[in-house]
């Protein structure tokens, strides 16, 4: 299964490992390499935060794992996405569709406002999901497509599924779940809609949830509630989460481990504690320093996010880095081990003592 590439790792323990994934988008000025050989590991039950500036490829990675890259525009050049021992890129699409997407891997969208179909009640939509993706449904009747239109919902399973829907709604703290099922999406507030989305993502009893900036569209006060709820629900159920965000505070709140992404590559991967105490990559350190602090000074990172069409040579961060050397300009750094579960892609990782930021 896991041949080549990451020799030092033990892939068997990982729920998901992305290795050397390269994805490019066709643009007028040539292909943009949005994912440039990124690697990422998620263990069972682990909440991993994927942090980075806008346009660094977070959403593209999330979509690639889900297998919903825009067909035609995006092209996967290399790499593998191994989930539960199988490479999703090389599995037959029918199998991925039937067993993985929406079942083993579910999704929480960024914007709860446009994510429900406005003309159907919430109950209709949740039950429609359960009709196809319920854990009670014996999978593998894939293949034939059109009879799906005529396929009924077995009565007994409907009742059982409805009960589990209500259970999950209660767990997601939706008031009056029975009545909520009959309401239309616009009758709920943003926070409640996001709770419904979380409930929806939990319904098929997935092993991995991909949450794409699920709180950016919400009020700051609601954000914290939703994050705590999400963390509690996934920890109770032992579900892994890949949580993308550009907000380090959010990542701190919810994640076990944080991966920093820059220009389509992972720069640093560290347990949350180590990430904030001992950032080893100059970019990570800059990122942490750019957080608004009590002294009122906001330190931005000089320079711009590099072009993905014509990326810088060597280390993608070198034009903005304070510690740049000739090696940085010439060679792309490998991932170095700088601590327990702490990897960094830098020729000159910062010493632990030097980078204490809190």
């Amino acid at each position, binding site marked *: 299964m896991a041949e080549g590439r990451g020799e030092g790792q033990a892939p068997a323990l990982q729920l998901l490992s992305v290795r050397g994934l390269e994805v490019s988008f066709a643009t007028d000025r040539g292909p943009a390499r949005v994912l440039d050989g990124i690697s990422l590991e998620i263990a069972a039950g682990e909440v991993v935060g994927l942090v980075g500036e806008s346009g660094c490829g977070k959403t593209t990675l999330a979509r690639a794992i889900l297998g919903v890259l825009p067909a035609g525009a995006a092209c996967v050049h290399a790499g593998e996405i191994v989930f539960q021992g199988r490479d999703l890129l090389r599995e037959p699409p029918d199998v991925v569709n039937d067993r993985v997407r929406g079942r083993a891997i579910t999704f929480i969208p960024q*914007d709860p406002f446009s994510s429900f179909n*406005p003309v159907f009640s919430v109950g209709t939509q949740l039950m429609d999901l359960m009709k196809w993706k319920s854990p009670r449904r014996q999978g593998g009747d894939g293949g034939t497509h059109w009879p799906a*239109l005529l396929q009924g919902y077995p009565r007994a399973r409907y009742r059982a599924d409805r009960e589990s829907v209500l259970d999950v709604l209660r767990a997601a703290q939706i008031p009056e779940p029975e009545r909520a099922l009959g309401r*239309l999406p616009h009758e709920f507030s943003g926070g409640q809609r996001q709770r419904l989305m979380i409930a929806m993502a939990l319904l098929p009893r997935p092993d991995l949830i991909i949450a794409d900036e699920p709180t950016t569209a919400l009020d700051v006060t609601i954000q914290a509630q939703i994050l705590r709820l999400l963390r509690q629900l996934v920890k109770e159920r032992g579900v892994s989460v890949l949580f993308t965000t550009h907000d380090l505070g959010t990542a701190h709140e919810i994640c076990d481990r944080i991966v920093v992404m820059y220009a389509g590559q992972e720069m640093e991967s560290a347990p949350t504690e180590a990430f904030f105490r001992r950032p080893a990559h100059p970019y990570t350190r800059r990122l942490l320093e750019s957080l608004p602090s009590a002294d009122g000074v906001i330190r931005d990172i000089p320079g711009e996010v590099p072009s993905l069409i014509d990326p810088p040579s060597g280390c993608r961060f070198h034009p903005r880095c304070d510690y740049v050397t000739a090696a940085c300009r010439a060679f792309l750094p490998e991932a170095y081990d700088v601590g327990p579960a702490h990897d960094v892609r830098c020729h000159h990782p910062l010493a632990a003592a030097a980078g204490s930021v809190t």
Partner: protein
Amino acid sequence: MSGAWFVLTRVARDRSALLGLVLILGLVIVAVGAPLFATHPEDVFELHPAKRLRAPSAEAWLGTDRMGSDIYSRLLFGARITIVIGVIAVGASLIIGVPLGLIAGYYQNWFSDLLMRVSDVFLAVPQVVLAIAIAQTLGPSLPNVILALSVTYWPWFARIVYAETRSLQKEVFIESTAALGASPWRLTALHVLPNIVSPIIVRASIGMGFTILTAAALGFLGLGPPPPTPEWGRTIAEAREFLPDAWWYALAPGLAIFLTVMGFNLLGDGLRDVLDPRLRRGRSASDG
């Protein structure tokens, strides 16, 4: 059900839409009950040359025409033809235009381009001219009028459905339904279509008025159903030569066409106001 009730109560609150609704209901009642309301139902086909061109009176409420028939009675039966033309032509345009628009909007490939260019051609030629050409070629008859109107009106539906489908395609709920493995049929029929019903209804209502007007124009030009069919447009054409003396002759069908078309347009405008904000409210603009 509650949705339909909601729309109805909202329409009732909008004065002009309510007026449109009343006019259309009146037209339908008159058309269905034509044999009951007509004072001289036999006059649709019978001629009384002795009584020709009489002014409105207690006997002939709206006067008599050049054949001596009761204009009021003929007008009522004309309402049936008008409704048949409007409903079948708009219905056929829906049946042609909506699926084409859905398919083109879903796939967004060469077929979409082809469909849009074809509809451009149809929309570039003034509809009446195109309808005249078709009706003229096929010969004047009721089915041919309906055919001509359907052929010229479907691009409107195809365009609207195409544009709406295309923009819905970017909504997360449609994308995720597709990602969960819904077949194209299921996606478009069960998930996209319910979202675009309201613009279709609005366009259908306005299209009824437009189609009826065009049908009357065809009738006026002698391309409608042949006499003695009591078609309104043809009646006006007949009345033209007697206009200075028998003003009532042209007034009655003219007014009937005017009120019918206005009814559908008012209702269409009212429905646009009622249906749109409700469905837009839940959605906020955002990128995926």
